[in-house]
């Protein structure tokens, strides 16, 4: 009750409303993503009340995940990568004068997926966090390895498995810069005082996920959006019967995929979309404007919201890049992921989780009543958006440590990250490596001390054995499919 009172206080409700509304608006702007919005705002929540700050960011996360579908449906321009599958079905519907049904399906499915996943988060997170109490340094190291195993699943047709792994290890190598916790000596700081505490996570995140997008937008040859569907006469329709099945499918799939480290909302949306195509009785309508596809894809990407937070706040392993940014917010408020979040910091963590339900309700209302108007946000020219977001990126990088050096760091990450991205390396893997690096090193080093130099400590306990099984289970299927893919490509070539 006490947590409900925190969430339903006027200030908290206003904060959640602002967060969710801003999230929908940000998600509705092509080029701006939830990671970018959350990453940019994390430093500014430093001075806020921690619970309020987290509620604001949670609202943005939930809202942005939905917001991407609005321009996807009305303008064939997905606001976020996770809304690409929605555009495949939504835009043909808009062109056929069925935009209201597409928008209604999208917002209700997003609400269903989001709410279900937050419910799962509320149910399982405290239990999982309690298990973390039994973790020693060896298990912590294995936990980091589990997160890294997620890197393999990040690999797709754009970033090969090897390149995803290289990016992940590169992130871990960048994370060793700074003071060595074991000996207190300095490592690879090049005499720069600013690097004594290591590379700060936030400038890296802002550079890799916000500034890169602005550099890409600035360099785009043209920015043309088809607005014909906005001008077309649209008819109102009821939700088709049986659509709930596809929402349920997407919600379950999205939540499960969100829980797996490294898997993001885009993958969740596409997998949910493909599954819905498989079980649909109207397969022939897919690609021509089928609301079933929208329902599955949107429930899938919003299902990721709660799912991705399960490993993030219980084990400190972010489910995706937005969750990584949110984890940064927890850490700057002194809330280290794990069991303490549900005991010592319960008065912040539970209100944050409950606020996600409210945020889902806010975007449901916003979507039902204002979606067609919000589509116009996508028409903001890049020439206006780029300098504004760039200014916030600079401000956000500076604000956390009041350090100009962090601005330079952000720019360096953006430029370096752009080269890596263009060559097919996964930036998600890089950031995951950057986060998991210190966890892995701490667990490894302490484990080696306890084990008196013997690596057997990492196989000793029952938890460790179970974790090795999970790591193998995470690694084998993608490695097998990668091997099959390479084998097939080799056969085709020769």
């Amino acid at each position: 009750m006490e947590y409900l009172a925190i969430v339903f206080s006027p200030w908290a409700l206003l904060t959640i409303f602002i967060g969710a509304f801003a999230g929908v608006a940000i998600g509705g702007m092509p080029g701006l993503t939830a990671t970018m919005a959350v990453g940019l705002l994390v430093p500014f929540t430093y001075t806020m009340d921690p619970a309020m700050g987290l509620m604001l960011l949670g609202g943005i996360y939930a809202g942005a995940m939905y917001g991407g579908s609005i321009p996807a449906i009305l303008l064939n321009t997905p606001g976020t990568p996770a809304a690409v599958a929605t555009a495949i079905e939504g835009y043909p519907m808009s062109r056929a004068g069925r935009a209201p049904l597409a928008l209604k399906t999208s917002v209700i499915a997003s609400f269903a997926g989001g709410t279900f996943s937050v419910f799962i988060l509320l149910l399982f997170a405290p239990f999982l966090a309690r298990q973390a109490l039994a973790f020693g340094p060896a298990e912590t190291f294995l936990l980091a390895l589990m997160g890294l195993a997620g890197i393999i699943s990040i690999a797709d047709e754009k970033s090969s498995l090897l390149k995803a792994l290289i990016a992940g290890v590169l992130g871990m190598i960048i994370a060793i810069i700074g003071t060595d916790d074991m000996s207190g000596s300095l490592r690879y700081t090049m005499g720069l005082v600013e690097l004594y505490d290591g590379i700060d996570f936030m400038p890296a995140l802002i550079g890799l996920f916000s500034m890169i997008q602005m550099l890409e937008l600035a360099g785009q040859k043209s920015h043309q959006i088809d607005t014909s569907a906005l001008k077309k006469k649209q008819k109102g329709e009821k939700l088709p019967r049986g659509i709930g099945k596809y929402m349920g499918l997407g919600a379950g799939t999205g939540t499960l995929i969100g829980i797996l480290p490294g898997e993001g909302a885009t993958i969740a949306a596409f997998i949910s979309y493909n599954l819905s195509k498989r079980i649909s009785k109207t397969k022939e309508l897919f690609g021509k404007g089928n609301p079933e596809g929208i329902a599955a894809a949107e429930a899938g990407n919003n299902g990721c919201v709660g799912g991705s937070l399960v490993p993030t706040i219980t084990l400190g392993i972010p489910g995706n890049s937005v969750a990584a940014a949110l984890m940064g917010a927890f850490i700057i408020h002194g809330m280290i992921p794990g069991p303490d979040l549900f005991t010592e910091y319960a008065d912040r963590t539970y209100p944050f989780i409950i606020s996600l339900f409210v945020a889902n309700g806010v975007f449901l209302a916003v979507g039902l009543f204002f979606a067609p108007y919000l589509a116009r946000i996508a028409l903001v020219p890049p020439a206006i958006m780029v300098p504004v977001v760039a200014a916030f990126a600079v401000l956000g990088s500076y604000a956390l440590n009041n350090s100009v050096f962090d601005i330079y760091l952000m720019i360096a990450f953006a430029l370096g990250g752009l080269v890596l991205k263009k060559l097919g390396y996964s930036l998600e893997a890089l950031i995951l490596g950057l986060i998991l690096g210190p966890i892995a090193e701490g667990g490894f080093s302490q484990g080696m001390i306890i084990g008196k130099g013997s690596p057997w400590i990492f196989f000793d306990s029952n938890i460790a054995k179970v974790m090795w099984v999970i790591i193998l289970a995470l690694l084998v299927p993608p490695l097998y499919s990668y091997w099959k893919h390479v084998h097939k490509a080799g056969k085709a070539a020769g």
Partner: protein
Amino acid sequence: MQKKWADRALLAVFILMAVLLYRSTADYPGIAQSTSAKYVRFLAVFIAVLCLAQLGFGLVRDHGRDILVLTGNRRRFLALLLGLGLFAIAFEPLGFYLSGAIFIPAIGWILGYRRPLVLGLTTAGVLGFVYAVFVQLLSVRLPGIEIF
């Protein structure tokens, strides 16, 4: 430059970095030799093996002639980069408001937006928002000359 050559050059740099990283662990003091140094050596060996494997795969399979294109419009891309650098340099001596008041409209103009009124209103809106929300409401401290 062709993508495949850029990729090979990058992998070569990573391999060189791995070698240097491995060698540097010899200088780790005391207890770090049996802990951190082992971890860093593991990372160095791991990335070197991965890079060699990728290099090998690339040499055997990658016969593409795609060119590495970082941007579709070099002038705007470099202008934004230069603008960011100047913004960062001016951030402390001029303060956020003054440097922001130059950066936002200048970059907007360079990117091809030609409506001074909209640029001016956007700049004023952003700076006003930062002042009201971040400085007043969230007590974020911003550097340099304050114009508010």
